[in-house]
């Protein structure tokens, strides 16, 4: 199916009333989640994932993707009005967005954030549409050694970019690998790390870990203090939310910058929308004629990062759908969702499931348009979400987490595990261990071990198979280089210190 025919087929499916409804639900939920500080898209998608088992997979994927990119739109609202990022991707938006709001230009800041998100989000979907199918065709040549090398490279990138300490990120990933080993080994039927518990023979469900680490961990962190933040006044009326012609002129380069940088960073495993927004902000400041005004309320300082974090979504779906390699916590949950619904993300995914792929792509065009409408005139309405009392919100999250886990396994034992993983998630937060590598280690652990063991079966136990094949050798070398990068930069810093 070529791109145009695929897209037409996708629109025919995505425009069906049920799919339109789920797209709207996802976008609205995403906006709400993005607005609420302390409740991110991975936590929300993890909590809602069990409920999607009742749905048609295409509708479910459309809704979950809507939450993913919808949160990026909503995240700017709290950054601009509260100086508190609704989610990590909107941290940079605080710098100029809040300053604009303090100068009485909150409407223009919210408006330019929505427009930049729409432009760059649409460019990101275009990139996904044109790059994913050829990349999938290229990856058809991959066998077990290439997959092992690719997953190793993906994990290395995530580890490198995940936090302040590469040692902690690696340890978090190894804990994820360990959790993925719990249960019965499918090659030999040996029970591993089950502590004699029958309930662990089938392993620990991904949903239990994801909800525990992301949702409960976040809520426990938020419960540390009773926060009272000052919400700046929300401008009412569409006219007060539209940026001026001069604002749009000033943001021309920022739209392009955010779109391109966001997509490229998204394609790289481990890049993520937070990094994309920081890079595009840096580029914008570097090429600006008024760099000294950045941080004091310039409109490009809002447009560039908001564009980048939206375009990143389209980029992040490329390796997820074509290679089965997620690059962040959220895409790891989407990967798990696809697997739970019975799909196998990888090179054959698009050719075997054209309806699902193209309806998702088409729904993202529609969703971005919906979000533009939701985030311009309806911002005052969504900002009311910030007035939801925490003492109502947090118990509801606890309850949805318990019901979500129980709906997957039907086991109260798993709810006990959920409590344990909630404590682990909170502990990781306090001790500065990033959670994305743990989730990725868990999601990829089984496939990584399978690919390694299959490779070694092919070579009768010789590890040389991993470096004898060119693609695998290149990717493994890159993975080693990526992991050694902190060592190189430390040596460089040491040399410069000696020279000076």
């Amino acid at each position, binding site marked *: 199916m070529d791109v145009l025919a695929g897209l037409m087929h996708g629109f025919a499916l995505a425009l069906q009333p049920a799919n339109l409804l789920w797209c709207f639900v996802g976008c609205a939920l995403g906006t709400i989640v993005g607005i609420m500080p302390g409740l991110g898209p991975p936590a929300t998608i993890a909590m809602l994932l069990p*409920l999607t088992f*009742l749905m048609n997979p295409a509708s479910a994927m459309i809704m979950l993707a809507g939450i993913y990119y919808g949160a990026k739109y909503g995240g700017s609202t709290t950054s601009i009005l509260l100086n508190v990022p609704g989610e990590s991707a909107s941290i940079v938006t605080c710098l100029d967005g809040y300053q604009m709001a303090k100068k009485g230009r909150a409407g223009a800041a919210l408006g330019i954030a929505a427009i930049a998100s729409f432009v760059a989000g649409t460019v990101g979907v275009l990139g996904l549409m044109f790059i994913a199918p050829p990349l999938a065709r290229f990856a058809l040549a991959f066998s077990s050694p290439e997959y092992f090398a690719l997953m190793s490279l993906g994990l290395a990138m995530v580890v490198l970019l995940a936090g*302040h*300490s590469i*040692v*902690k990120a*690696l*340890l978090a990933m*190894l*804990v994820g*690998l*360990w959790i993925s*080993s719990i249960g019965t*080994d499918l*090659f*030999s039927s*040996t029970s*591993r*790390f089950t502590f004699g518990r029958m309930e662990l023979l089938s392993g620990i469900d991904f949903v239990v870990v994801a909800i525990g680490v992301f949702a*409960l961990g976040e809520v*426990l*962190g938020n*419960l*540390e*203090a*009773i926060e009272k933040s000052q919400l700046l006044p929300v401008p009412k009326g569409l006219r007060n939310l539209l940026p001026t012609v001069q604002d749009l002129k000033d943001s021309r380069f920022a739209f392009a910058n955010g779109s391109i940088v966001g997509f490229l960073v998204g394609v790289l495993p481990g890049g993520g929308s937070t990094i994309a927004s920081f890079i595009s902000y840096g580029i914008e400041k570097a090429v600006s004629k008024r760099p000294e005004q950045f941080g004091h309320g310039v409109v490009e300082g809002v447009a560039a990062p908001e564009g980048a974090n939206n375009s990143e979504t389209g980029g992040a779906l490329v390796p997820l759908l074509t290679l089965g390699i997620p690059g962040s916590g959220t895409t790891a949950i989407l990967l798990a969702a696809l697997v739970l619904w019975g799909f196998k993300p990888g090179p054959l995914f698009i050719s075997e499931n054209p309806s699902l792929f193209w309806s998702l792509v088409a729904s993202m065009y529609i969703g971005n348009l919906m979000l533009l409408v939701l985030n311009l005139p309806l911002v005052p309405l969504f900002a009311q979400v910030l007035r939801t*009392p*925490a*003492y*109502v919100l*947090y*118990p*509801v999250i*606890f*309850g949805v987490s*318990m*019901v979500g886990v*129980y*709906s997957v396994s*039907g086991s*109260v034992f798993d*709810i*006990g595990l*959920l*409590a344990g993983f*909630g*404590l682990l998630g*909170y502990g990781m937060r*306090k*001790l*500065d*261990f990033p959670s994305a590598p743990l989730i990725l280690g868990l999601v990829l652990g089984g496939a990584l*071990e399978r690919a*390694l*063991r*299959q490779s*070694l*079966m092919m070579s*009768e*136990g010789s590890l040389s198979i991993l470096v004898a094949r060119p693609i695998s050798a290149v990717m493994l070398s890159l993975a080693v280089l990526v992991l050694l990068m902190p060592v190189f930069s430390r040596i460089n810093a040491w040399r410069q210190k000696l020279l000076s």
Partner: protein
Amino acid sequence: MRVKSPDFWSGLALAALGGYIVYTARGWEYLGQDGPGPGFFPLWYGIVMLVLSAILVLTGKSEASWKGAGRAFAAWAAFAVSVALIKLLGFLIAFAALTFFIVTVMYRRPPVTAALVAAGVAAGFYVVFPLALGVALP
């Protein structure tokens, strides 16, 4: 090595986990006739975990602020107790009790408000999940 740093203690805990993984994996087949056995992969990542946790113990020096951690642990303990109560009292009562605790103890709201919120969210869950969505409650 800084004993007061949380990195020291988290490194020790992870070293213990790494040691357990290596010790247990040594009991499983490493390489068989058909290729690597169930002990192959865990043994290697267990060894890497041991090495990295030793690095964390020796070089870690980050600080952690525990301000407010008491509130988080109290909330977690309440959650754990409510999970334990599910089998005895059923989900709705255990969940309502958890909500009551959070509203009165964590957010210092009057018991009447807490009771209303607890009853409201429990009823809401009953309406949304079993009645509207057909999802069974624990």
